């Protein structure tokens, strides 16, 4: 069965500093990979996705993620964090066949002024 692990429950980062959120997955083949963000009171918004091809994918709001097959990882990065990036971030995977998204536990990001 597929699973997703986000090792960091909370991360605090200063505004303007870089951010990296870790995601590791367990799956027999290359899954489809996603990062979602949830701001308070909002639904889940897709930041970026990886299906195939270039392993470095660009998303919205200045985020990027890199797929590393050898490490079963799909880490999310942003070079310079803004206060509005404070939110909870979820990594998710999906089989190529099927619709079900499997989510990690989420990482809550706090941004210090």
């Amino acid at each position: 069965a597929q699973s997703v692990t986000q090792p960091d429950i909370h991360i605090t980062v200063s505004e303007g500093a870089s951010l990296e959120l870790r995601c590791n997955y367990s799956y027999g083949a290359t899954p489809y990979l996603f990062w979602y963000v949830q701001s308070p009171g909002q639904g889940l918004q897709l930041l970026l996705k990886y299906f195939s091809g270039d392993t470095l994918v660009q998303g919205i709001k200045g985020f990027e993620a890199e797929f590393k097959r050898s490490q079963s990882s799909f880490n999310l990065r942003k070079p310079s964090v803004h206060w509005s990036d404070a939110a909870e971030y979820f990594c998710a995977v999906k089989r190529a066949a099927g619709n079900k998204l499997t989510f990690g536990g989420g990482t809550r990001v706090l941004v210090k002024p």
Partner: protein
Amino acid sequence: EPEVTQTPSHQVTQMGQEVILRCVPISNHLYFYWYRQILGQKVEFLVSFYNNEISEKSEIFDDQFSVERPDGSNFTLKIRSTKLEDSAMYFCASSGTSGVDEQFFGPGTRLTVL
């Protein structure tokens, strides 16, 4: 920008009562989903729906749960006899013409069972 909407935003019910959670997916989408998130736990898949039938469901989605698309715009999740452990945030999502398309999520309905 089109969005998924959900009503109500918060539902409080007594144990054993039936609840219906409502969702309006994005209008040209063909795939519909329900997920839930119990407080402090992961977002969990419940069910996907396509072409007026369930295409996939999780072990959580037992006989107490049902989904329906009663008209061309609404997608509902019914819990027949609520339990305390059904208290959670329920998210509706929809995606376009292919199962690989991005799933767009609604803001959620917080269900509290007393």
